[in-house]
């Protein structure tokens, strides 16, 4: 990957908004805070990439044009990216491609979603069921929890993972989120409390599930020559996307996130680094078990369950995962999620993250996001300044 830096970024709080503010307000807040962080002003931006999963949430078609207008951006290149849960991450990669190809010099990537504040939970669930095959799975009224549950059951059967392993992940990510003042669910919960929370879809219980959140996040991308000289900003060293069959039943191994394995190989090759150089991960933990399924597919440890049980993925472990709290703790306003993941990982390796940080910033961080049930998998490897 050529010289694409994350010049700066910012996010709003992720939560269920009840303060009367709108998604337009959140976008404005995230955009201007990101510009400040990057040391730029609006007229420096020559491209805007908007990430928003569904117009059914915002009730705004062509949101990039509307947002550009509200931000006072005119006469610039606009693009809207969408890829289910991976929407925000794909938008960052699209923005990086604009910079790398020379089509833009300084790109604002702005993700948002207003899923929690605008609609009741049942309506959001009905819309999310269209994330799978809408003519078969979606037509059954099935929610994400049940599809993820069926995949998790297959993973448990093949690997010996237990509900206690899942509960440990759910509790740990919420504990990490307690140091993140922008997080939706910074909960002081234990494994036992996760295991005692109400059943949603076996084996998943309420605390195994990430929340519906509102919020926005923005990062500014550019080449080093086009950004203010600010020391230590992270570089997008490798980016990859791979897909899997949409329907679980069409997959040879419904419990495994195979597309992540494919994307990981490509991202490592592009970044020119070995897998053992990755020092931390912001990972798409839409459900607790999905964190272990993803880590299994990414292949960064010999045995994911042994590593999990030995504390490898804890904040003070050898390979910290979701120091931000992840989706389980920080929250998941879909269009903003991947943007916020990239931002958190960048600031962690830059040594300036506002929440839980590694004792020693590693050189490389991995960001993992997916749409569907690991159907559309996006990975990026970030490199700190050396």
């Amino acid at each position, binding site marked *: 990957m050529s010289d694409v830096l994350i010049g700066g970024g910012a996010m709003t709080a992720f939560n269920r908004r009840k303060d009367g503010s709108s998604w337009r307000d959140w976008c404005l807040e995230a955009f201007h805070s990101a510009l400040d962080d990057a040391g730029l002003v609006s007229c420096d931006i020559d491209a805007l990439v908007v990430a928003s999963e569904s117009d059914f949430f915002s*009730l705004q078609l062509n949101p990039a044009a509307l947002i550009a207008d509200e931000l006072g951006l005119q006469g610039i290149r606009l693009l809207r990216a969408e890829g289910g849960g991976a929407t925000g991450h794909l938008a960052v990669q699209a923005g990086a491609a604009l910079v790398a190809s020379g089509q833009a010099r300084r790109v604002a990537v702005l993700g948002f979603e207003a899923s929690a504040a605008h609609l009741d939970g049942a309506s959001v669930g009905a819309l999310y069921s269209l994330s799978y*095959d809408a*003519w*078969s*799975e*979606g*037509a*059954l*009224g*099935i929610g994400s*929890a*049940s*599809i993820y*549950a*069926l995949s998790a*059951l*297959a993973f448990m*059967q093949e690997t010996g993972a237990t509900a206690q392993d899942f509960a440990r992940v759910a509790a740990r990510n919420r504990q990490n989120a307690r140091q993140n003042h922008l997080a939706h669910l910074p909960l002081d919960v234990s494994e036992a409390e996760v295991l005692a929370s109400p*059943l*949603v*879809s*076996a*084996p998943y219980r309420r605390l195994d599930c990430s929340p519906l959140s509102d919020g926005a996040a923005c990062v500014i991308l550019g080449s080093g020559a086009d950004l203010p000289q600010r020391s230590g900003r992270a570089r997008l060293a490798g980016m990859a996307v791979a897909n899997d*069959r949409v*329907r*679980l*039943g*069409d997959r040879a191994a*419904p419990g495994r996130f195979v597309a992540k394995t494919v994307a990981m190989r490509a991202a490592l090759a592009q970044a020119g680094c070995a897998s053992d150089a990755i020092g931390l991960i912001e990972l798409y933990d839409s459900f607790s078990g999905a964190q272990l399924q993803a880590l299994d597919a990414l292949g960064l440890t010999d045995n994911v369950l042994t590593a999990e049980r030995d504390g490898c993925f804890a904040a003070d472990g050898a390979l910290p995962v979701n120091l931000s709290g992840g989706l389980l703790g920080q929250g998941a306003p879909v269009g903003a999620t991947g943007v916020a993941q990239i931002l958190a990982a960048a600031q962690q390796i830059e040594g300036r993250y506002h929440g839980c940080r590694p004792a020693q910033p590693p050189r490389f961080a991995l960001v993992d996001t997916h749409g569907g049930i690991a159907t559309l998998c996006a990975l990026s490897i970030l490199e700190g300044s050396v």
Partner: protein
Amino acid sequence: MKRILHLDYAQPTGRLASHFGALARGNAMAWLCAGCGHVAFPPSLTCGSCGARDGAWIALSGRATLIQRSDMQGAAYALVRFDGADNAALVRLKNPEITTQRGALLPPENESGLWLELEEPRNDD
């Protein structure tokens, strides 16, 4: 600001019309790939095994075996394999109070989607 949308979609099913037509009657119509013989139920426009697009519709018995099952309050879903199919399918269980491993396809309750009625447990006494 309050907004209410009522959207009434009518979606043609195109090349999959045979599948959905049979499904509405509670029958399982699968796609037999002319390239590799892969039997897909539910079907896809392109063979997931070899990438071929040619093939023919074949009727399956509509009976299936459970692979995984997840229960929630008021509903249960399962990953099943229909007899004669090479892929698996996600179904909603019509009678989740039953815990047997075999079932039969039913006409869908909301015009699409796969619904399975589990067999009653056998009484061997």
